[in-house]
């Protein structure tokens, strides 16, 4: 086996990008107290939206804005159903993801007459890759850190923006207050549904970026079911990190590695692709188990360990 490890790591960064955005999207709604599985469908809609807007607007930037716009709109749909319509959020998200899966194919077919992908029928646009001066000339590091998609750098920046938003701004404070004790926020006249809508708007922006990356950077077209669980993986990543932005990004990176590993092995080995395809999903399940076990053990240790310490006193 002859694996190009540098390419592998660079690839992992690339694959982690949509996951980081997905995780940030889920993280903001989580901070407002909502477990939003709808990111999966939101990203899917945005991915299609990006391609369509780019095609008709004739520019990659129109496409990017279009993707974000679709992210916002779909976020508002979920928010409306669960906050105003008072539908169980789980059920809303499952229903929405169903609609997104069918609806994107439906729209794609109406526009192109094709049900599997827009490649060939809608023009391809690509978000530019950026070479970073100086760094790009460093061996190894240059190949990894430089030459990535603009959105990959934006993802890194976004992690800190989200941290800043939550910790330093008024709306961040209100989002956290609502997430931790909605009645407290309500009692001082903060509208809980309004904060919910706002957090879904932020969520929509990041879901839009995630979708735009998939259809204009990872590949340059939209294809049926192209998100393929990345929304759920991002959701799990932020869950592992307990809703902390930097931790969520690191967890996403871990899943990016799993994704990249699956792709690299597929290209370089003869192992059945079906099993390699399972890697990201199995990695997610494994990660969920590990996080829960750690959390459970920690709680047990506190409850028992301090008991011992107390007995020894």
């Amino acid at each position, binding site marked *: 086996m002859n694996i190009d490890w540098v390419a592998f790591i660079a690839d992992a960064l690339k694959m982690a990008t949509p996951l980081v955005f997905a995780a940030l999207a889920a993280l903001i709604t989580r901070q407002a107290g909502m*477990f939003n*599985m709808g990111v999966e469908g939101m990203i899917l809609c945005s991915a299609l939206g990006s391609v369509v807007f780019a095609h008709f607007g004739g520019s990659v930037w129109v496409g990017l804005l279009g993707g974000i716009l679709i992210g916002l709109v779909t976020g508002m749909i979920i928010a409306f*159903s669960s906050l*105003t*319509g*008072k*539908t*169980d959020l*789980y*059920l*809303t998200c*499952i*229903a*929405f993801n*169903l*609609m997104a*899966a*069918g*609806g994107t*194919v*439906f729209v794609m*077919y*109406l526009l192109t007459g094709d*049900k599997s992908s827009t490649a060939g029928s809608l023009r391809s646009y690509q978000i530019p890759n950026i070479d970073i001066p100086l760094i790009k000339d460093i061996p190894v590091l240059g190949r990894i850190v430089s030459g990535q998609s603009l959105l990959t750098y934006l993802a890194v920046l976004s992690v800190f923006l989200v941290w800043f938003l939550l910790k330093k701004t008024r709306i961040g404070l209100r989002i956290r207050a609502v997430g931790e004790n909605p009645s407290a926020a309500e009692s001082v006249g903060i509208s809980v549904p309004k904060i919910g809508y706002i957090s879904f708007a932020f969520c929509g922006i990041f879901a839009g970026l995630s979708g735009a990356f998939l259809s204009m950077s990872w590949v340059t077209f939209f294809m049926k079911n192209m998100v*393929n*669980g990345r929304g*759920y*993986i991002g*959701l*799990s990543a932020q*869950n592992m990190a307990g809703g902390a932005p930097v931790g969520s990004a690191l967890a996403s990176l871990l899943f990016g590695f799993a994704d990249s590993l699956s792709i690299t092995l597929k290209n370089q080995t003869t192992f*059945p692709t*079906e*099993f390699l*395809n*399972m890697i990201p*999903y*199995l990695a*997610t*399940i494994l990660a*969920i*188990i590990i996080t*829960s*076990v750690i959390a*459970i053990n920690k709680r047990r240790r506190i409850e028992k360990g301090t008991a011992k310490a107390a007995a020894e006193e």
Partner: protein
Amino acid sequence: MNKTQKIESVMEVVRILAGLFIAYAVALVILFAISDEPVFIVQQFIAGPFSSARRIGSIINLAVPFTICGLSMCFMYAVNKFNLIGEGIFMLSACMVTWVSLSLQNLNLPAVVMVPLMYVVAILTGVVMAFIPAIMDRKFNANVVVVSLMLNSVIAYLATWILRYKVRDSSIAYMGSKEIPKSVQLPGIFGKFRVQSGLIVAIICVIIIAVLFYKTSFGWKMRLVGANPRFAKAVGLSALGISFAAQLAGGAVAGIAGATEMMSNYTRFQWTTTTQHGFDGLLVAVLAKKNPVLVPIGALFLAYIRIGADVVNTSGDIPIEFVTVIQGIIILLVAAESFLSGAKNKLIFKAAEKDEKEKQAKAAA
């Protein structure tokens, strides 16, 4: 109080009907908007499913897996776990039936042995697969929705691998298995309607599960746990154990659904992705308000709009996917608490006011 209860139950039916009606209206509007010959298409969508004995039979055929999957989701939904593993189980159990029946082909066992055996295989498949998210939920408190969805992807690849490397018939042009033995191919019934014999399986399932839900202590336990798990624990029920068992039972039923579909509607296993039946089951369970008795009604309705979509797909080139959008709208409307709640509260207020006045009149007298 009596009036309140009546108003609540009447409004519940009104709500579901109104939800269906709105979704249906949306479907018609979409068709009207995108079709070149809207009148014809809308007419096809509404009446098409009843236009021939064959199509009526198709509605029933389609309603069979929807019913059994709906029953499967009733178990999950009854204990408030949105365990969506049924989606994967449906595919895998069909695949396992194919694999096992082909492996046993040389034994030439009669149908009376093979068919029950296949159901055992399917149920085992369902239980084993449902076990994974259920045990993770129980032991690690892991989110059952995310885990089951991840697992569905894994299952889809696993089933595809079995298809490709274990049962594939390389003599046919498309990706499909060898033909399953005649002994496991269930015959059609009702002559020209061409109804699958799975109908009988579905009916038996509805009866058994309805009795299980309402007449046995396990059913009581599930419903109590679903209604308030902390309360269930406080009165001495093992909430975790019961919701775990309910999820396994749901998995077993999903297995039955997959096997029935495979044995009555197909001769070769040919799926390379999951089939949406698990999600359809969720829709049916939501429509039926997790009541097994109402599941067939929800399933028939869903089958009707699906066949309608099928008809317009073939006769008017409208992509069938628009139905999933309609399905989503139905779930959202039917499950939305505040949908029509204003009307309900007004009615209750009026009734209470009237009661109050009557009381005062009585007191005065």
